[in-house]
């Protein structure tokens, strides 16, 4: 415990990065033993492990071949060499894949497994002491073994006068690699070895699987044949695919025809029909919600003893009634308000023939007939029509904005409005 008075601070995140790197290794290690991770991650890890094991097998085989060719190593010696490399890797934190090439180099030079192992240990110590890469140091030592001491003397000038080159080098650097081994590297290395061992378990399974699917008459061949047959219209599968294609086309044609029948202009246009059907669905939903609103409000009014208000709601158009509920005012007041809004927007007086059961909105004069009669006998869902230079618009809930939108839409569709002085006013 001490009190620290800071005089100058420094920014240096290398320590944090190093720690993060180390813990990244830990995360991988935890992944390696399958703690707290999902199935896909385990699968990925198994594949990674199998790859690592495959690479490791390749590198081991390469070294083993050299041991046999150069040092006439027996099977026992090969196994012992594998164990030696693994233990050295664990002790020093250097990857076994980096150790094997150096070991191979020493075997080629010494023609002796034991001597090669001694030199490998020595070169690791020398590498740790000098900070030079293992490859460079092992080159220098192997050169020195065959009599060319120049490179090694460059690394260790004190060896120039040495009579026992490797003995003196051992005295200088002995044990440095294990002493200076980075704990995180050792840890990561251990985990990599674990991973390889895990991969060794998985690899035979993968090899069996690959062998099974690639053998003559295996899954790959069978699937390939299936695709060939599917592409050939003369085969049964090809015919089935062709009929499926026809069925899809027929379904699409039927849908087009169905939507064409829904075209409000009678032009058999599927796009307009589809839009119309969407509009119908939208209107229906609007009508249902309006109806519910009016019903609930009517019951509320009856409960509150406001019988006149309840009757007004029941006898009015559903849209107008719902609008009056939303506005929180009476039906007649809602009509007056809508009129006031349309006048303010410059659309003139709006007349609502509420007694007809529909909410007819008329610009420029009274209607010549009731809605629901004449050329649009179905009445309810027609947006616009003209009668004696007037436009009759049926809009659910009599929203002024919806009225204006409908009029503008009519203008765009028909190239203008039937009476002058209206087109742009108020928009």
């Amino acid at each position, binding site marked *: 415990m*001490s009190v*620290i008075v800071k005089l*100058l601070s*420094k*920014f*240096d995140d290398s320590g*944090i990065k190093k*720690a993060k790197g180390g813990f990244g290794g830990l995360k991988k290690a935890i992944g390696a033993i399958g703690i707290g991770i999902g199935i896909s991650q385990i699968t990925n890890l198994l594949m990674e492990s199998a790859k690592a094991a495959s690479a490791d097998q390749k590198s081991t085989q390469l070294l083993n071949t050299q041991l046999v060719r150069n040092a006439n190593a027996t099977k026992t010696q090969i196994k012992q060499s594998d164990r030696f490399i693994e233990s050295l890797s664990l002790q020093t934190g250097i990857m076994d894949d980096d150790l094997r090439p150096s070991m191979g180099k020493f075997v080629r030079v010494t023609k002796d497994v034991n001597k090669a192992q001694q030199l490998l240990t020595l070169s690791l110590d020398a590498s740790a002491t000098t900070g030079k890469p293992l490859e460079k140091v092992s080159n220098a030592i192997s050169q020195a073994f065959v009599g060319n001491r120049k490179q090694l003397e460059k690394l260790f000038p004190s060896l120039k006068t040495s009579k026992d080159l490797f003995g003196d080098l051992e005295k200088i650097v002995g044990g440095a690699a294990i002493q200076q081994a980075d704990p995180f590297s050792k840890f990561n290395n251990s985990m990599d070895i674990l991973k390889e061992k895990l991969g060794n378990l998985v690899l035979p399974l993968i090899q069996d699987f690959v062998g099974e699917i690639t053998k003559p008459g295996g899954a790959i061949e069978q699937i390939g044949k299936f695709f060939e047959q599917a592409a050939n219209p003369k085969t049964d599968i090809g015919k089935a695919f062709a009929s499926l294609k026809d069925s899809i086309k027929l379904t699409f044609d039927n849908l087009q025809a169905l939507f064409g029948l829904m075209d409000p202009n009678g032009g058999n246009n599927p796009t307009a029909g589809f839009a119309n059907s969407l509009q119908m669905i939208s209107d229906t939903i609007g009508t249902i919600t309006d109806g519910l609103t009016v019903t609930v409000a009517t019951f509320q009014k009856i409960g509150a003893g406001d019988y006149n208000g309840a009757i007004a709601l029941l006898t009015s158009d559903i849209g107008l009634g719902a609008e009056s509920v939303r506005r929180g005012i009476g039906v007649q007041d809602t009509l007056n308000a809508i009129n006031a809004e349309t006048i303010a927007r410059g659309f003139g007086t709006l007349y609502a023939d509420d007694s007809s059961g529909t909410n007819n909105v008329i610009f420029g004069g009274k209607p010549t007939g009731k809605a629901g009669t004449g050329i649009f006998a179905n009445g309810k869902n027609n947006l616009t029509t003209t009668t004696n230079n007037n436009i009759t618009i049926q809009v659910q809930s009599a929203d002024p904005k919806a009225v204006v939108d409908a009029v503008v839409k009519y203008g765009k569709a028909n190239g203008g409005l039937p009476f002058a002085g209206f087109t742009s006013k108020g928009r």
Partner: protein
Amino acid sequence: MADDIVYNAKEIVKALNQLEPGLKNAMVKEMRVVAAPAITAIKAAIPKVNPFESKVRPVSNTRGRLGWGVGRKPDEVKFSFKTKASKKFAVTSLASLRVNSPATALADVAGKGSGVPRRTVTNSYSWKGVTRSHRVTTQGRSMIRHLKKNNDNNFVYPGVEKSLPSVQAEIKLILEKYAAKVNRKLN
């Protein structure tokens, strides 16, 4: 009393030694000389006698790890220059003054907290083959009261407050001077 933050301090110091062995030591020596007024100020602010002692407890805090003057001198203030990176924080002190005596540090920080212990019972720990925990005592409250009454707490920073800005500025100048030497040689 915010201190300045410098970047690449480690690289600068490394380059200094590569440029001329011993150059880093020369720089630290210069910094130590500059920091002397602050060190003197802190030493002057540290109580000369055991602040934990009172008439009713004449031998208070004279023994053990936190004893006054045990192991380290109560007024030991050292200049520290560290370039080692932390694994927890990106910003750490490069140059600092350290009051290393635990008893002095204890007296200095007394009463700076809320006075409410974070827990009333300790974690379980093994003791003579059994697991046990104990109640956190409230003895520290009377100690804090006593130190506060005699103005024997919170003395390090108030003591160094006046001299600190100029010392900080001079130390930064020294580092910049040596960094410039490195740059000149490199260019």
